[in-house]
């Protein structure tokens, strides 16, 4: 672990806990969203390999709150942990993905769980 941290700092790869996917510094819990229409998004959170469902869901809700405020409804449709295969180490659990439709201005699925989200 220490070696990884040293290697990361040497190569200048900074990581943060939460942030947009594909941006620098790299976020451990990375979000991305694509608008379907004016009020609906497909929201995706990708987490580290050891991330549990509770934290991933709270991250999903965190981003949902940022996009919609308190009033939104969620329809999750994908919770998957793919198996990645490395040539050197064999197979390993991949980064979990939580994905779903987010409808702004409908219901109040927000609030509540945001406190559980790591900062």
């Amino acid at each position: 672990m220490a070696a990884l941290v040293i290697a990361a700092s040497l190569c200048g790869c900074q990581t943060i806990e939460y942030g947009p996917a594909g941006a620098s510094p790299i976020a451990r819990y990375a979000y991305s969203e694509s608008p379907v229409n004016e009020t609906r998004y497909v929201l995706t959170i990708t987490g580290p390999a050891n991330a549990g469902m509770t934290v991933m869901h709270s991250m999903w809700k965190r981003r949902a709150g940022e996009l919609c405020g308190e009033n939104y409804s969620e329809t999750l449709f994908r919770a998957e942990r793919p198996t990645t295969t490395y040539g050197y180490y064999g197979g390993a659990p991949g980064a979990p993905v939580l994905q779903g439709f987010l409808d702004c201005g409908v219901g109040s699925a927000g609030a509540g769980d945001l406190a559980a989200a790591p900062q």
Partner: protein
Amino acid sequence: MKLVSVAIAGLLTGCVAVQDYPNARPMTVDAIQAVARTEVVVAESNNGIEKSWFMTDSSAAGAQYGLIGGLVTAVMDAIMNAGPSRRAGQAANEISELVPADALTASLVWHLQSQVPEGEATGVSLKAVAASQKITSPGPVDRALEISTNYTLSEDASAFRIVAHVALQGKDLPYRSPYQFKSAPPKSELAGPVYRNTFTYHSAQLPVPTLTPDLKARLASNIQASYRDANGAPPAADSQDAKAMAKELEAANDDKLTKDEIAIFLTREWLKDNGALLKREVETAHAFIAKYLVQDLNSTAVPSFTGKDVLLETASDQRTVRRVGAGLDAGSYTSAPGNLTSFTTYGNAIAIAKVNSEKITRLTSQARAAKQKTTKKST
């Protein structure tokens, strides 16, 4: 080695193109008019319901230490994989007794037949539906809509996935790619089926059990049962099986419930009441495939690599049907449950029931013999 070097060099120089257009091939107005009514050929399910599992493979790591390293890691992998592989095989065997591969094929044929219109129909509609054994009769059937399927239980057996691959190909139905390419289109986009798409159904998730003393005891008894022979006798002391069983019992007694241990219990949940839950999901999946296949055959919408998801249906239990908007899977259809409570993993290996693997072996040797006969005749 040469090939690997060429591939690496290609990647480094950016010469190897990464596919940036969807796999789906939508119908065109011309193709809809030319096809009108199509026969359907369902490839018989040979694997039946597969049980996925996670296979440890450290051979690459061992190989750098030469022959000894390779041998050591091979033995270590074999020991580590013995339990999960055995359990996955056992789950596949149990499932095939209640939901045999033939029943899966028959169910899909029935659901597709229910989409055959009684009278005249507009656009593309289905005609006769038949099953075909693709091991003995490989190759595309001219002008027929061909469907092949995969049925897979997840690593911990908490979820079940059905994927249907559909293609329509005809000698007089040339494929013209609807996608734009910066330079010449790749070879794969110059021929092949005029229509192609994928339909994926994800079952509802079963709740993952929590570890209790009772669960530990049931797990141990299940492991012991799995090592008994046909007469119910346990493995002989000091045999390889006895050692493997002891190792598994030791692992079962720790305070962790691994995915393949969870699978032992959840497989039973699927098979309760004569496999009622599993059969219901299979029927629902086939109904979804048949319904949306007919819809898609009459759609000329061209998917885009950077498009948007389309929500087609939301059921009262939060299940959604959507047309995937972006990426390689753009244009494909997915039915997924709502209220997800855990992550699903489909491992990197599958086990198929013994009865199915024996059938595949038999059919493969039949096909080989028939091919040799034909070759001899022609020479």
